[in-house]
């Protein structure tokens, strides 16, 4: 059971990196998605460029740049900070695109009804348009989160001691056949984490679909 216990030691950091960077991304994606839809052309182009860059850069490259590229004596990111910032910003790029798609599917009539009622633009956006958009794309967001959960293992390359890092460390010290065991356990743990998320997202989606579409 030793390999399992070793891998389990990495579980908290796996959760911290995936949930933390998801939150960072989910928040940063709000202004970005608005920027993708603004009628102010220069702003839209800048947001489009940022989103495309964030989606285009390989995670491992971006993490290395943040962890080892910024190394002045006064300012340097810890491994965890670099992982949260790196995976968070990349998530922002993907989530901004998902939000944008969601916003696009909200019918024009919803904006018009809000306008005709004299509801101010920010309130209309946050209370009427955005909730409907999020409901429509909630399965896509869940899928992205599951992907992010597994991609958090890339943080092991910048020495964040999450599950895969622990598995590697154990395997390096136990070169026998049991060396593969921690990876098997890590794999099973990822599955054990993702399957409930997928199931919850499906049932949530079914419930929301009844009330929205």
């Amino acid at each position: 059971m030793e390999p399992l216990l070793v891998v389990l030691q990495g579980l908290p950091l796996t959760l911290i990196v995936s949930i933390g960077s998801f939150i960072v991304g989910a928040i940063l994606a709000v202004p970005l998605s608005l920027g993708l839809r603004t009628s102010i052309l220069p702003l839209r182009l800048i947001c489009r460029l940022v989103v495309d860059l964030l989606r285009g850069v390989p995670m491992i490259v971006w993490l290395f740049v943040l962890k080892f590229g910024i190394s002045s004596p006064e300012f340097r990111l810890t491994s965890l900070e670099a992982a949260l910032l790196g995976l968070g910003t990349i998530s922002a790029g993907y989530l901004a695109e998902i939000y944008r798609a969601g916003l696009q599917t909200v019918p024009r009539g919803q904006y018009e009804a809000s306008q005709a009622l004299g509801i101010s633009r920010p309130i209309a956006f946050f209370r009427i348009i955005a909730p409907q958009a999020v409901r429509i794309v909630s399965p896509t967001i869940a899928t992205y989160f599951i992907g992010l959960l597994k991609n958090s293992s890339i943080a092991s390359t910048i020495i964040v001691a999450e599950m895969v890092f622990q598995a590697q460390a154990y395997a390096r010290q136990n070169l026998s056949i049991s060396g593969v065991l921690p990876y098997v356990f890590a794999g099973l743990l990822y599955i054990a984490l993702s399957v409930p998320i997928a199931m919850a997202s499906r049932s949530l989606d079914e419930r929301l679909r009844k009330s929205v579409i």
Partner: protein
Amino acid sequence: MDTQRNESEDFMLELGAITKSFGKNTILHQVSLRVRKGEVCSIIGPSGAGKSTLLRCINLLEQPDSGNMSLNGNFYDVSFPLRQDELLSLRRTCGMVFQSFNLFPHMTVLQNVVFPQRHVLRRNESEAREVALKLLDRVGLKNKASSHPTQLSGGQQQRVAIARALALEPKLMLFDEPTSALDPELAHEVLDVMRELADSGMTMVVVTHEMNFARTVGDHLVVMADGHKIEEGIPEAIMDHPQQSRTRQFLSAVNH
């Protein structure tokens, strides 16, 4: 002079030479319109006549290219976009009912009627709920308060939309083909609510294809074609003795 001033006080809405084009297409050619307080003004005409666009120019869902407007005693030059506060106050004077209902699907029926009151009139929750329940009762849907809009028939949704607009105490109600998306049977229940609203003294501008409603409930009839107002007057008079050949053509097409 005196009679003129008195006369203009009688009007809830005066549109002056409203012109609107989309690209190269001119949808409205200098359309003027006056609606007395408490009057039901029906706008009819073939599709593409500019009826809905004219209605949407009243609460500035469409920005006219030029023209002016007097609404409930306030004058607006609508050749340019209004300031945000002017725009909000103009829209608070008008309630609007859409062809596609446009209820908020993520809220219950009650929340649909409560939410705008909370944010536009800043009513507190209990007062807003009280007003909402009273209005839902008036449109016969108090028992649906906790349902979601998608669980309602089209006719029921449209009645909720009317209650939602009325909750903000508009001086003028705009109806944009309110029954066009409904089966005749369901249209009936919406028309009944509108009839009751007209009887209560609400000023209404109704874009409609319901000739019977325009004739029996309407006080004033406007016929539009190709972006022009071609004829207006007392509904019976126009329907029985249209002066314009374009009106005759339209009426005979509708009556078949």
